[in-house]
């Protein structure tokens, strides 16, 4: 199989192997924290951080880990960086930490991260793993941003906390409640599939 170029390695996380829309991974935080753009952004950043550093560590020590204990090893490494992200947010961004609640620790079971370690970092050199992690992380973050923009604009009439629509627009409260999350993601999946079909 032809080796991907660096830019292809990066770009695949943005569309063709988009973690949310193509791989259907990490849906729990996607639905939970996209009620406001700032939350989606924070979650995307935290996830990318964990993904990046886990990939670096695991790619560096991949030769040392016996296959039977690889999942357990991955989990410990990932959980370590998740704890770092969680403590960092609680210490320096307490409001965001409160808003994201238990979803930051839940990054540890975000299948995207474990999936990338299993599928890529444990089998590839460090540099490529970094590119792969960045592509997936940024693809994830952009998807979160799209979802949270839609939900925040329609659901609160604001963007990043700043009022956007005038008084004439009565926000659709449902958008920031659970049903709105499901509907929006479902429709976006449909749109993604449609655009993807047209591309081919």
């Amino acid at each position, binding site marked *: 199989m032809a080796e991907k170029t660096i830019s292809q390695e990066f770009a695949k996380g943005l569309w063709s192997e988009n973690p949310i829309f193509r791989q259907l991974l990490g849906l729990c935080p996607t639905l939970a924290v996209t009620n406001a753009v700032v939350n989606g952004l924070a979650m995307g950043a935290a996830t990318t951080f964990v993904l990046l550093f886990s990939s670096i560590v695991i790619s560096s020590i991949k030769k040392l880990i016996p296959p039977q204990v690889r999942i357990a090893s991955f989990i410990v490494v990932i959980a370590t960086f*998740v704890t770092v992200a969680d403590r960092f947010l609680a210490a320096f961004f307490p409001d965001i930490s409160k808003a994201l609640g238990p979803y930051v620790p839940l990054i540890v079971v975000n299948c995207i991260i474990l999936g990338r370690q299993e599928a890529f970092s444990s089998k590839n050199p460090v540099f490529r793993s970094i590119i792969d992690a960045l592509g997936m992380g940024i693809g994830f973050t952009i998807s979160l941003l799209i979802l949270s923009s839609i939900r925040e604009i329609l659901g609160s009439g604001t963007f990043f906390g700043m009022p956007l629509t005038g008084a004439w627009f009565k926000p659709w409260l449902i958008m920031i409640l659970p049903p709105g999350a499901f509907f929006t993601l479902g429709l976006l999946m449909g749109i993604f599939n449609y655009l993807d079909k047209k591309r081919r």
Partner: protein
Amino acid sequence: MELVTIFISAVLINNFVLHYFLGICPFLGVSRRIDSAFSMGLAVTFVMTITAIVSWIINHWILIPYHLDYLQIVSFILVIASLVQLVEMFIRKTSPPLYQALGIYLPLITTNCAILGLALLAALKNYGFIQTIIFGLGSGIGFTLAIVLMAGIREQLDMADVPEVLKGPGIALITAGIMALGFLGFTGMLK
């Protein structure tokens, strides 16, 4: 009375899937048929209840007394991974047909955010020992309820005329949205 409140809240009002968005992966992945959905729900409820007990013990006997709360995430996930491993071995030994039915779903329970979510939420809400068990039981039952309802609907959906781009996860999510809408009606029940 408070135990009843916690239970009803976990099953209906703050349903793990439809309110907390936990357990979405199995919710979308295993909800095509009612019987497999029910088996998954049972397995999850079982693991959740035991996880509730073990995580409470670890939290209150080890982590808090020794000021090790920064080890909470690591210890919880390791406990869950081990528990799932044990449950899988146990089911394999005692009931091969059940093992056949649940197949690959069991290891997937480890990354099921619902289990870790349960441990974290119970710790966050600072529940006592019995409360945590009830919370675990209720959340598992709530998850089972949601996934079985979803399977019932999806079995019908499979025969319906769904637009190509929405087939699969798209329509499943929209269905979940409608279910979530329905469950919203349960809020305020506690009064």
